[in-house]
């Protein structure tokens, strides 16, 4: 089946083309069904490939065709199928399929229904390309493609001006990161002479640890990852991206696209371990982002914004894992996060759907009994993300925490704090949205249709069970995911482990249980504050305490960027436009254009239409050529 891997990205592409070309023709949910079934077949193929890879422990490169070939450059359009990419395939097609099915219900009746599904399929296509590509260029195509689709989908309801601004913001922020990524690719090509993963990683052995070239390359790649995965300082686009439809937030801004940065670094782990400085920077950026985003999340009042900051925070967590060399942990958390964050977003979408588009949590409450399925699945998602055993989040977070402890105990402490913050804001959200507050009249709400709730349930089951793949050795588990991914990471992990200290089993158990105890304390704290005291977040215009205000205002990141970059850039572009462009360049260009047009008009006249003249001109030309070539 591996040789048919090209079908996996092809099917969503066909789905996209099919819908795009019958844009006006498809009625009802036809396009949704086409899109979903395309992803579903892709998922089945991915599953078969995954099982093959899992059982045979082989990797394969499927070459489709030579793409660019001249001089020494030989870039082929080929796919790399190994443990890492198949794992990603499973997440993208699996979660993607569920979200597609969910969207059929969620987007029902929207005037852009067909457009929505064409974009979604296109997105999945590019995401699969990103993951499957066997060289950085294919990856870059996918990388840019998902950026494009993200832009299209954030601005999906383009009639609202803010949505367009959010889309532009996401696009521009990503562009900054992409520049870094692109420069990284250029440098890789310059130093390695190839862009193939295998070729580069093979040659990487020739570089010593701490080589400055590698450091610069990895830093540039990391800049790309920062943009795509919304880390400090380029994270501000992700919360704004919530302007798109909720399934988009679930698919793109929680489960798949934003994890591209993680995937890219995990894929390039061989390079990154050669540069301890980069790894340290990654860890610091990751943990800082996690901390700040967690802080902001606590003070948000929009249900999707809370989840968005939570995503930023969790992504920071994954970067921490990458930074400390716990690559398996990062990928494991990526997987479980994809499940429970998609679940949370979709459940949030279901809440919004139930309340006819209301997103402000201050206007919610007491939904527990009215939309029980949504509540129950949301609860499972909350428990999973909070890291309460035996839900999946516990195991994946634990893997990262252990990794952090092995590297540096300060990381561990901050990570635990972040993890507690996660618990707090998630339970805060849960209590405010679903628990009843007496002083409010009953909200009118209705449960979502089946095709929305069934994906929720499936995701809920996955959120509970996914942890089983990563039960650590201390619990008698056999760390399935670790073994599965080991061919990719072993080498790198060995390099990292030289510096790290082994920890004993007892320490490990201790490290596991301290956070769990605190988690329960925090859950109670949230219960006390938001259920017992019935405390509600203040209205927007109300004065807040200084500290809370800073976080509520998202640490003023947007304002700072505005003053630091946007305003000077606008001034500069004003100057360039008014003086350089209009007065200098335009005039030159216009004159050049006029000259060309004038010559064109003049030269036309030699075409007289008179055969005699033609023959005469030919003879004169021949004679002139003969004279000049033979006699002068």
């Amino acid at each position: 089946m591996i040789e048919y891997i090209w079908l996996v990205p092809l099917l969503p592409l066909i789905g996209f083309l099919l819908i795009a070309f019958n844009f006006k023709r498809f009625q009802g949910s036809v396009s949704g069904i086409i899109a979903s079934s395309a992803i579903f077949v892709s998922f089945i193929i991915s599953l078969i490939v995954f099982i093959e890879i899992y059982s045979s422990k082989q990797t394969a490169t499927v070459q489709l065709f030579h793409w660019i070939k001249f001089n020494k450059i030989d870039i082929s359009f080929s796919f790399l199928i190994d443990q890492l990419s198949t794992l990603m395939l499973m997440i993208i097609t699996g979660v993607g399929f569920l979200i597609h099915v969910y969207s059929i219900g969620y987007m029902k009746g929207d005037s852009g229904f067909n457009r929505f599904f064409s974009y979604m399929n296109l997105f999945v296509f590019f995401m699969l390309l990103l993951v499957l590509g066997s060289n950085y260029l294919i990856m870059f195509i996918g990388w840019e493609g998902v950026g494009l689709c993200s832009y299209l989908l954030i601005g999906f309801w383009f009639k609202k001006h803010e949505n367009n601004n959010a889309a532009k913001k996401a696009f521009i922020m990503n562009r900054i990161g992409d520049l870094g990524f692109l420069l990284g690719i250029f440098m890789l090509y310059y130093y390695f002479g190839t862009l193939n993963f295998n070729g580069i990683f093979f040659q990487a052995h020739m570089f010593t640890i701490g080589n400055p070239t590698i450091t610069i390359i990895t830093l540039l790649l990391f800049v790309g990852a920062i943009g795509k995965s919304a880390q400090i300082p380029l994270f501000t686009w992700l919360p704004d991206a919530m302007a798109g439809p909720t399934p988009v937030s679930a698919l793109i801004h929680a489960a798949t696209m934003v994890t591209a940065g993680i995937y890219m670094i995990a894929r390039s782990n061989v390079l990154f371990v050669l540069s301890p400085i980069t790894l340290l920077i990654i860890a610091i950026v990751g943990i800082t982002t996690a901390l700040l985003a967690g802080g902001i999340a606590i003070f948000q009042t929009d249900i999707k914004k809370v989840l968005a900051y939570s995503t930023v925070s969790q992504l920071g967590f994954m970067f921490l894992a990458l930074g400390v060399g716990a690559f398996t942990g990062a990928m494991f958390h990526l997987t479980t996060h994809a499940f429970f964050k998609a679940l949370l977003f979709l459940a949030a979408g279901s809440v919004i759907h139930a309340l006819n588009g209301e997103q402000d949590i201050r206007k919610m409450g007491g939904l527990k009994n009215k939309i029980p399925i949504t509540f129950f699945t949301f609860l499972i998602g909350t428990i999973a993300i909070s890291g309460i055993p035996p839900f999946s989040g516990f195991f994946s977070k634990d893997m990262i925490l252990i990794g952090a402890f092995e590297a540096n105990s300060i990381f561990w402490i901050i990570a635990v704090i972040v993890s507690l913050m996660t618990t707090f804001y998630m339970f805060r959200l849960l209590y405010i949205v679903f628990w009843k507050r007496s002083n409010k009249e009953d909200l009118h709400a209705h449960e979502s249709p089946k095709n929305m709730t069934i994906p929720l349930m499936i995701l809920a089951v996955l959120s509970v069970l996914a942890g089983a793949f990563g039960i650590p050795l201390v619990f008698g588990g056999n760390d399935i995911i670790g073994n599965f991914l080991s061919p990719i990471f072993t080498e790198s992990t060995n390099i990292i482990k030289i510096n790290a200290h082994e920890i004993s089993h007892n320490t490990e158990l201790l490290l596991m249980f301290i956070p769990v105890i605190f988690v329960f304390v925090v859950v109670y704290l949230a219960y006390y504050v938001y259920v017992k005291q019935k405390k509600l977040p203040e209205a927007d215009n109300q004065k807040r305490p200084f500290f809370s205000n800073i976080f509520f205002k998202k640490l003023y990141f947007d304002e700072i960027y505005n003053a630091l970059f946007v305003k000077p850039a606008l001034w500069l572009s004003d100057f360039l436009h008014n003086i350089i462009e209009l007065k200098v360049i335009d005039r030159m260009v216009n004159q050049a254009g006029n000259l060309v047009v004038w010559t064109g008009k003049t030269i036309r006249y030699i075409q007289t239409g008179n055969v005699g003249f033609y023959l005469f001109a030919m003879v004169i030309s021949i004679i002139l050529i003969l004279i000049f070539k033979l006699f002068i």
Partner: protein
Amino acid sequence: MNAIIALSALAILTMFFGVIQKKSVLLPLILSGLIIVFFLNVIEWGTFKHYYNEMFIADNFNIAFTAALILTTFLVFIFSALYYRTVKRPLEDIYALMLFSLIGGITMASFGNITMLFIGIETLSISFYILAGSKKFDVASNEAALKYFLTGTFATGFLLFGMALIYGVSGSFNLQAINSYIIANKESIPTLFYAGMILVFVGMAFKIAAVPFHFWAPDVYTGSPTLITAFMSTIGKVASIAAFYRLISITFLNVHDFSVDILMLFAIATIIVGNLSAMTQDNMKRMLAYSGISNSGYLLFAIIAMGPKSAGTLLYFSISYAIATITAFAVIMLVREERGTFSLQDYKGLAKQNPVEAFAMAVAMMSLAGIPPLAGFMAKYNIFSVAMNGGYVWLVIVGVIGSMISVFYYFKPIIYMYFHRADAHKKIETTKAYKIHILLVSILLIILGFLPGLVIGLL
């Protein structure tokens, strides 16, 4: 060789079926015949044979270009159904002439002897003369035929004179023999030989419509029936450039220093004049005629540089040029059928009414203009890089400037189609098959843009 024999049989069969008034079998017969010929041609891949005392050389170059020519003819025939839909009589004479000129073109890509080159050129040209005038009661068509004939025979005269001079000096018509003569007498080649070369080059330059021997092209292309224009501007050009390449690569490579100046003069003049004249045209057909002229200039790059990749790049450029031109002409035919003129004004708002056709036209125009990732871009890019590798920086600079100018006029129809409001035109009704064909051909252009390595690697 297979291809020539089979095609001759096909042409005679076509005439036969035409004469017994079986109109409906003609096109299916020709199309299936062309497919068979294509395969007959391709199965010879990799073999190197020569026939009749090296009159014919069947090598990979020949097979590749033959395949390209057959493909182009096939596409033209596909679109001929629409063009001639109002004609009642079987058009076997026109079809047979098209097939005969294809045979001429194939001969031009496979000659081993300059007399064979001459025969190929004549077979091609004489068919073209008649085809150009095949709209018997149209003055423009008659004028085109006569102009083409007059100037064409004139150029053929020079070509033949040049061949005679070369024969007179070297004592042979055989390409290899002439080459050996050049190698043996490198220092003492008489001037008359060079004069012969110049005259042969002039004849070839006329055939590919290189400036200053291009005068016939705009008038003939504008006057001829549109389908025939599409055919002439692709088959004629591809075959002639293949012949030119073959002539120089086998025979005149050792006196290339001498030829380079002339060829560069041709190329530069062609690009400048072709692009500048195309710019101010309001008539789509005439604009494409000039575009064909300017493309000859780019094609000459490969011959001037004569690098290891010249042949492959030439092939790729030829195919992408031919497909884009045919796509454009297919749409032009349609618009002209419905709206009566070739004026750009007729394309206003076409995108709204006929999105498929407009899309195909846009793809063709963008490919010709060299917008990535379409085939035209890859073709131009590769041909420039061939010239670059040969060290002809100035040539590339002229080429790039010409390309920039060309964007101006290639985008005009796109702007008219997509950004202008249609004034009084109705939607153009066509058959679904025609739409699909146009779409497929334009998609072929896109696909081709991703496979330059494959095509260039062939040769």
